[in-house]
């Protein structure tokens, strides 16, 4: 268990209040109709599954019910920070879009 800082509530809260939202910044294909099955399957199921720093989404389910961005080390559970979706995107892009 760890503590997550919710950028909306401005507080550190127990992990139990949150729901994991998976890898962040997965772009939905612009035109799903023309995409082949492999491409759609990749969008739905293929993940980086990083060991180390990972950009992910968490939902503050029993608090403000908003999703936000967390940069977490999947090996050590160290947390580099949490941001709103818009701010997280900026931080992610500033790192070159990859951890």
């Amino acid at each position, binding site marked *: 268990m760890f503590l997550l800082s919710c950028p909306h509530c401005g*507080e550190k809260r127990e992990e139990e209040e949150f729901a994991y939202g998976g890898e962040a910044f997965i772009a939905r294909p612009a035109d799903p109709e023309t995409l082949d099955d492999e491409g759609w399957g990749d969008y739905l199921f293929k993940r980086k599954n990083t060991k180390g720093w990972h950009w992910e989404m968490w939902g503050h389910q*029993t608090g*403000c019910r908003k999703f936000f961005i967390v940069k977490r080390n999947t090996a050590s559970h160290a947390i580099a920070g949490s941001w709103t979706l818009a701010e997280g995107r900026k931080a992610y892009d500033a790192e070159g879009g990859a951890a």
Partner: protein
Amino acid sequence: MSKSLMQSPLHHFDLAKQAVKPDGRHGVWAGELPLAGYIALRGDSATPAFVEAASSALGVPLPVTPCTLAQSGAVKVAWISPDEWLVVCPREKLGATIAALERALEGIRSQVVDNSGGYTQVLLTGANASDVLAHCTVYDIAHLDPGKVVGTTFGKSATLLHRQDRGFCLIFRRSFADYLWRFMVRAATPYGFGVALREDASAAERETA
């Protein structure tokens, strides 16, 4: 058609029959507050026009600081998220409050929804009230200052929680009321649990008002 009847989501516990005036013999007392009006208010807290209009309609400044509660008379406004608030008012004020909000917010991007069928409130008091909450929720109760309202986990469900009088007020979903009440009673029983007279609960509410 049968006449529609509003009843408490805890009615099947027949709390009124078990209720006694709270005294020192139990560590924890709980009582359901009278059915109230609950209004879900949504809008952008970064838009001054919205905040001003909502504040003037409610007669209390809209709490835009995260996790804060604004109270004026019997009307309670709880911050839920940057774009959502829960307004709790006496049932007899419900229609007028909704009408005032709708009038004030006309033309401003917002939403006002009567959610009165969806919630209920329980007032938890007694010397061991915070111990019970420590068993049931994951929030650090020591950091729950007066005027603060937090949404947190309660067992496997969720509740809004804030200090009221010398105890705690829990605002939670009607559909989870049975679960929450049983969970709380089970956690409270080792400390001695009593159902507080509803008159006391409502009197306590009027005191704050």
